[in-house]
Each structure stands twice: as structure tokens, then as C-alpha cells.
């Protein structure tokens, strides 16, 4: 939406600029065209006097008369005392009325310019239909208010432009909403009328296609998840029977079956989780969680699930300022994320670790740092997590899910690899999301 407003704002500004430039160019051009500097020699009072006194003998006569059809000089009594290529129907004597007409831009349809010098008049005439002149009588008060008129007109132009821009914005708004909706995988139903009906129709079509695929994908995942659970239950029951048997080998086999079944169950859960997070199925169940007891419970569950060696320890360190801190989260999802990180630290370090530290402290954000002294996370895993793709890339769906969960909580996840361990830094906002 902001993009659209920005586009319209720029469009309006550029239109105004173009308009202003054109106005200025036109004014300048018009000014040049209508000015006396056109192709004609600018007459000075010296030239007027000179021509009137010396007439044909005046040195600058040709230059002065260039561009004019005819010229004449009338004395104080109205008598024509000199002329140059004068039309034949011009009188030799001009009455005051004739003089008055002369001063009104035209004489016998010839545009004229009148230059007085003493009691004489120099009159220069241009070709008929070569110039348009108009006498303009403007009261001074009106003249003084021209700037106001200009400003008012400018404001009206701007207002009109803004109004048209707003109309354009309104017209395009459903299109932008539609594109936003596509991004969020919503089902679109844009009105297929008006100026953007073609675009709206196409967007509706795209939405329908995407939605159909989306439903098929969701149903497939649900189906797989659901249908696989009963066979897994059978395997688990048999595994448990073997594990409870008195025969040692059966016990070992049973334990292995249960362990692998758990892995498959976790993979199914990961698939469902990914479904929810990436494709937005289901909302977060946000609640306020008191973090110290919560983290203790998460850590305790790790102890209870894994058989740790005597010299192995998962240590939770809670900063003094963090004891009473709380955070808003989907507890189930966040537990999943933390459990995944801790389980990975235990499993993938393959017993080559002694301590996993969970450090919890609060400053502007909630910080949960999980450090282990194991073998370190492989570089390829970090690259994949950062978005790099390759044929041999390790499959790390679990870590992607952790990342998605943290990001769904508007937090951040950072993983640092060292030679002697890995550090996972989770930052979460303190305020409600």
C-alpha cells in the first residue's frame, strides 16, 4: 500500500514539474516571439530623431526599416512629410481622427508602430495579417491581484491532480490488495468491473489456481500424516513388547525399533509443523509465559529423555534480572524449537561433549543462548540455513523449523560454529506479539 502511495506521489510531482517546465518554456518562447527583438532592429530615441530629421539621408535608415512594409513621417499639422514604400491609398494629410486610429495598433489593417519625436511622428507599418495586437485595459487593482490568480490557479491544478491521483489510487487499490492477498495465499474475489477488470480477473484466476494447489498439498500432508500413524502404532506396540521381553537380544531390538519409531514420529511432526509455519495453517496460540520455570521444565525434559553420561551435564543459568521475566509465545511451538536444539546438541555431538549450557538473560530483548562443547556444527549446515542450495546439501528440516518458529515469534536465530562447540543464540521480543 505504501508503495502505491509513493508511486502516485511521484507521479503527481513529476506531472507538476513537467507542467511547470512546459509553462516556463512556453512563456519564454512566447516572450521571444512577441518581443520587438524578433527580427527587427530595436529603435532608440536617437534613431527616431535621426530618421525624422534626416529621412532618406539617415545612415541607419535601411536597418531601421528592415522588416517593415512601409514607413512615413507626419509633422505636427498632420502632413505627411516623408514616406517609404507607402501604399497608394494612404492620404497625404492625416486628421486627428486618423492619428487617433494610428495609435490604436492598426491603420487600414496594417499593424503599426508609432514613435513620436518633438511634434513629429514616425510611423512604421507591418504587413497585413502579420501581427495581432489588442488593446488591454486592466484596472490596477486587478493587475495587483494577478499573482493571487496565478496562485489560485496553481492550487486548483494541484488540487485537480491530487484528486485524479486519489481516483487512480482508489482504482488500483484492489489490485494491490489482490497482490498482497496472493502473497498471503488468500482466496481472492476482486470485482471484475471498472478500469482494472482485466487485471482483477487475472488475479482472481491466479488465486484460484494457487488455492487449489495449496488445498491439494495440505490434504496430501494431512493424509500422509494421518495414514502413517496407525501403522506406526503397530510397530511401536511390537517394539515395546520386544523391549519388555526377558530375552536380551529382543530387548535390544525392541529398543531400537522404538527409537526409530520416535524418529519417524518426529519427522511427521516436523512435516506438520512446517505445514503450519510456512504455509500459515493455524494461528499461534500466544500466551504469557514465565520464563524461568518454563526453561527449567524444558531442560528437565531433556534430562528425562536422554541417558546422559555421568560426566555430562545440561546446565541452566538464569541471570538475576531474568528470574521474574516473562515472554509471549506459543508454548508448544517454542518447546519444540528448544527441544530440537538441545536434542541436536546431544545427538549430533555423539557423546563428544561434556556440558551444554543454557544461558538466559534479559536486556532489551529476551536472550536464550545454548552453548555446547561438542564437535561443532558443520559448515554446510550453516550455509544451508542461510539459504545456500547445493546438490549435496544436508537435510536439516528440523533446524529450518526452529528458524521458522523463532521468526514466527518475531525473534531471531543465530548459530555460531566453533572448533570446540556450537552456540545458538535466540532473541525474542519482550512485548506481546
Amino acid at each position: 500500500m505504501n508503495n502505491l502511495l509513493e508511486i502516485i506521489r511521484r507521479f503527481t510531482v513529476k506531472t507538476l514539474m513537467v507542467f511547470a517546465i512546459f509553462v516556463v518554456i512556453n512563456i519564454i518562447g512566447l516572450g521571444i516571439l512577441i518581443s520587438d527583438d524578433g527580427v527587427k532592429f530595436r529603435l532608440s530615441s536617437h534613431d527616431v530623431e535621426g530618421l525624422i530629421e534626416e529621412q532618406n539621408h539617415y545612415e541607419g535608415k535601411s536597418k531601421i526599416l528592415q522588416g517593415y512594409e512601409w514607413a512615413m513621417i507626419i509633422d505636427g499639422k498632420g502632413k505627411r512629410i516623408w514616406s517609404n514604400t507607402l501604399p497608394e491609398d494612404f492620404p497625404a494629410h492625416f486628421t486627428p481622427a486618423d492619428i487617433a486610429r494610428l495609435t490604436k495598433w492598426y491603420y487600414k489593417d496594417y499593424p503599426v508602430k508609432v514613435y513620436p519625436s518633438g511634434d513629429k511622428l514616425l510611423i512604421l507599418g507591418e504587413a497585413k495579417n502579420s501581427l495581432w495586437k489588442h488593446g488591454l485595459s486592466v484596472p490596477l487593482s486587478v493587475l495587483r491581484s494577478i499573482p493571487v490568480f496565478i496562485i489560485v490557479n496553481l492550487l486548483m491544478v494541484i488540487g485537480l491532480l491530487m484528486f485524479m491521483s486519489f481516483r487512480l489510487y482508489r482504482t488500483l487499490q484492489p489490485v494491490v490488495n489482490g497482490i498482497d492477498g496472493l502473497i498471503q495465499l488468500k482466496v481472492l474475489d476482486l470485482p471484475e468491473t471498472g478500469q482494472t477488470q482485466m487485471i482483477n480477473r487475472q488475479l482472481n484466476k491466479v488465486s484460484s489456481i494457487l488455492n487449489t494447489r495449496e488445498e491439494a498439498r495440505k490434504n496430501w500432508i494431512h493424509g500422509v500424516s494421518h495414514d502413517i500413524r496407525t501403522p506406526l502404532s503397530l510397530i511401536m506396540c511390537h517394539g515395546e513388547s520386544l523391549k519388555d521381553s526377558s530375552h536380551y537380544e529382543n530387548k535390544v531390538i525392541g529398543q531400537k525399533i522404538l527409537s526409530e519409531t520416535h524418529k519417524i514420529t518426529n519427522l511427521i511432526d516436523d512435516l506438520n509443523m512446517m505445514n503450519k509455519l510456512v504455509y500459515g495453517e493455524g494461528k499461534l496460540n500466544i500466551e504469557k509465559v514465565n520464563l524461568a520455570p518454563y526453561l527449567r521444565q524444558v531442560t528437565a525434559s531433556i534430562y528425562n529423555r536422554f541417558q546422559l553420561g555421568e560426566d555430562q551435564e545440561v546446565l541452566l543459568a538464569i541471570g538475576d534480572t531474568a528470574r521474574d521475566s516473562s515472554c509471549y509465545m506459543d508454548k508448544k511451538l517454542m518447546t519444540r524449537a528448544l527441544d530440537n536444539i538441545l536434542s541436536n546438541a546431544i545427538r549430533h555431538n555423539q557423546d563428544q561433549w561434556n556440558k551444554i549450557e543454557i544461558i538466559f538473560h534479559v536486556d532489551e530483548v529476551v536472550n536464550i543462548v545454548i552453548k555446547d562443547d561438542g564437535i561443532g556444527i558443520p559448515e554446510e549446515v550453516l550455509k544451508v540455513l542461510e539459504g545456500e542450495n547445493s546438490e549435496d546439501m544436508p537435510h536439516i528440516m528440523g533446524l529450518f523449523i526452529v528458524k521458522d518458529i523463532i521468526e514466527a515469534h518475531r525473534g531471531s536465530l543465530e548459530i555460531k560454529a566453533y572448533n570446540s562447540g556450537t552456540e545458538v543464540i535466540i532473541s525474542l521480543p519482550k512485548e506481546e506479539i
Partner: protein
Amino acid sequence: MKDVIEMMSTQYQILIVDDHEELLELIKKGLQDRGFYNIKIAKTCQEARRVIEVENIDLAVLDINLPDGDGFTLFRHIRESSTLPVLFLSARDEDADRLYGLGLGADDYMTKPFLMEELYLRVQSILFRCYGMRDKKDSRVIINHCEVDFDAAIITKKGQEYSLTALELKLLRKLYTNKNKVVTFDALSDCLWGQPYYGYENSLMVHIRHLRQKIEIEPSKPKCITTVRGLGYKLIHREKVYE
């Protein structure tokens, strides 16, 4: 002393409803192995309704996706005429399904795949809640060479009897119920006082110390009730039998 496993009372009749025959048989066998001998099975809603009408069922384990209906509808039908405890056991793992089932009034909801031991424990828990009967093996046990009688709140160590206070009894029962697992400070504080841990740290430590004095052979070097740094306590216990 010799190791003996006390069997659960065989009086309870449990109905299992699932359309998957093999799984039905496995669950039946699993519960029978754990002392529930009276197991009835049904593969459809209609069959289940008939069994409930005819037999005196004490608890029903219901699948949700059934060939002639669903477990939720069956449950509603059951509830119309009885307060029979029900546990849903389903492949439907969505939160919505779980919440719906529990919201209808079911006593528990488990998703497949599951551990038989977990199913057994949850069934046992529901039966205890509803009928007050408890596995006898839970009332008198051997912990760390001591005889513990939970009902009488007495620990007998090397022939000497020690009475447990109400809080000590609660504490020991909580730890024993979660034997070999870490129980957090918060869980213990909640169990004893219904309060958050902060503010009760010292009180908890004191009660643990008193309990250790009664149950540990060498209280200064506890082997039974161990501290898990920063988290809570764990009761280390190997199954022995009270003779």
C-alpha cells in the same frame, strides 16, 4: 525380600474401539499383560454402543475415525446416558481435534503412535480419579532399602520408623510418582504450596533435607534423592518389591 510384581485389581472392564483389527488386538494384549484382564473390543460405533449397553464397562478407549461414524459422536451418545470415563486414542493430531475432544468432556486424549506403557498409565490414572482405586503396589514400596508406606506416612529404615509430615509425604509421593525423572523446583513448589518457586527456595531445601534424613542411608551423601543443579530433584529408584 524378593522381587514380585503386584497385579492391578482385575475388576475393571475396559472397552477398546478401533477399526484396525491388528491394533485392537495389540492394545488388548498390552493391557492384559499389565493386569487388565477384562477387555472388550469393538470395531464400529454400532458395535461399541451394543457392548456398552450389555456389558458393565468401566472405561472406554475410543478411536475417532470409525467406519460408521466418528468417536466424537459416539462419545456424545455415551454421555447422554452415562458418565463412563473415556480416553480418545486417535491418529488425528491436530490441536483442534484434541481440544474438541477434551472440550466435549473426555477424560484424556492420546495421539498415535503411542507407547503401551503410557496408555496403561493414563488408563490407570483415569480409573483412580473416577473410582478411587489405586494400584496396591503404589501404597507400600521399597525405596533405597527403606520401606515406605504412603498410606500410613511412615518410612522404616534399618528397623526404625520415621513419620512423614504431610508436606514430606506430598514431596516423597511427587518424587516417587516421577521416579528416575527430574522434577523441577517449580513443580515441587506447586505441589507442596501451590505457589511459584521463588520465595519458597529455602522451604523446599529444608523439606528435602528432612526427607533425606529419613530416607537416605547417608543423608550427607544422598544417593536416593539427588539434586540436579539449577533444575530440581530426582528420586533414583530401582523396582523392588515390598514383601
